[in-house]
């Protein structure tokens, strides 16, 4: 309520002098209630997105303020979802701003009992080394087929799982790189 000390702000006065004699509405309003606006009204920008959970493809509006996601809700313009979301889609803000999200690389040494830190650049270098090494070690030019040895030009040492939650562009680059690498044991959720 207005600071009781400023006599004029006292709601009781508004109640007695105004139309809200029982003090159940207009007289009882606080300044905060008068100034109240939705946080999305002050967003820096609204970005068009799509829910990451299931394949219905509900369109989402992502409100951003000061580089942070402040709200994710359905986009009424979508002919598929008409602005609606399910419980998972409605929890998208919590998904992307979850405090338990990992934001640092974790590394586990062989036989170790716990994680340790590792900076990302080094980690990707180490992974690249391992890919090249494992590819070389398990490279196979030919394999026995029903009609004798046939050229296969591949490695069975490297496998990959994943992508139904990923973008088409990501799946494309992964398949392109793996294929050029000769890795063929590539799979994703289409199989489970």
């Amino acid at each position, binding site marked *: 309520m207005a600071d009781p000390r400023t006599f004029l702000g006292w*709601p*009781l006065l508004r109640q007695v002098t105004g139309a809200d004699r*029982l*003090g159940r509405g207009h*007289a*009882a309003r606080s300044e905060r209630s008068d100034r109240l606006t939705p946080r999305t009204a002050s967003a820096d920008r609204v970005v068009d997105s799509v829910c990451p959970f299931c394949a219905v493809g509900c369109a989402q509006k992502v409100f951003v303020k000061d580089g942070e996601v402040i709200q994710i809700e359905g986009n009424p313009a979508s002919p598929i979802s008409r602005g609606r979301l399910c419980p998972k889609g409605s929890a998208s803000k919590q998904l992307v701003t979850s405090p338990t999200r990992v934001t640092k690389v974790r590394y586990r040494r062989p036989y170790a009992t716990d994680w340790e830190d590792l900076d990302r650049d080094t980690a990707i270098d180490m992974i690249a080394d391992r890919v090249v090494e494992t590819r070389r070690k398990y490279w196979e030019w030919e394999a026995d087929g029903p009609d004798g040895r046939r050229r296969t030009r591949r490695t069975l040492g490297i496998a990959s799982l994943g992508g139904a939650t990923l973008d088409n562009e990501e799946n494309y680059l992964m398949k392109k790189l793996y294929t050029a690498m000769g890795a063929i044991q590539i799979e994703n959720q289409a199989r489970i």
Partner: protein
Amino acid sequence: MARGEAPMVPDVEFESYYGRQIIKTPTWKTPDVPLYLFLGGLAGCSAVLAEGAALSGRPELERVTRLAAAGGAAAGTVALVHDLGRPERFLNMLRVLKPTSPLSVGSFILAPFSALSGAAAASHVTGLLPRLGRLAGVGAGVLGPPLATYTAALLGNTVVPAWHEAHRELPFVFGGSGAQAAGGLAMMLVPLDQAGPARRMALAGAAVEIAAAESIVLRRGLVAEPYQVGTPGRLMRIARNGTAAASAATLLLGRRSRLASAVAGATYVAASVTTRFGIFEAGLASARDPKYTVVPQRERLARQDGSAKMSR
């Protein structure tokens, strides 16, 4: 007319959502609120006694009752503020005056009463500004009865079945109980010769309280059940018996034995406190079991022969 454990009403058939309660259990904390109910009654009636004592020249009685009024009001206010979820915002109680809210009306009774009874007691004790003190005392006396009885509206104006059904009797229970407490306290602390009015106040209050309380407990229908069974039932019986005993002692020995008067007074006060706890617990019990909400409402609907309460 001791009432056994067995409820007066047989088990009833009704549907519910997995047996869960429909209304919320009141969030008022015990002992804060039952104590506040008692202190309000004590302070209010003590202020009335104080005025009587001042007018009839009973200095001992006046001193005790003025202190009781001021002390009771102060303690009550502390209990009330302590019960708040955000005690630091207690002043918001005076933001608006809402006749639809007994607690809002009550705040505008308690606040001035506390000030006036405090001033009266202070002036009486220190002797400063006697005339102003007397004037404050009169004010407190005037606000006494409302302070003692508005708390019944506080409970009566809820959806808690046990309280709401008893909204006609509760004011008399609280008023009587307040008088009984004020009288009792005075009987304890005031010499016999000046305690006559206290005794009479206590006796009359007790009579009113017992009559009103019994009409609640003995009421036909399910909603009286919380006052009969379990802890609330026991508390109500203890209070009633205590009050009755105190009244008997007062009538027989009240005027002659200082000790008897004190014991009776104490019993009166104790019984008054017990009544408040009994009524408070009965309310909680009636909120926790959905049958006390559903069955009476179903009966009410049936009585109106299913008129289009709900358009089919």
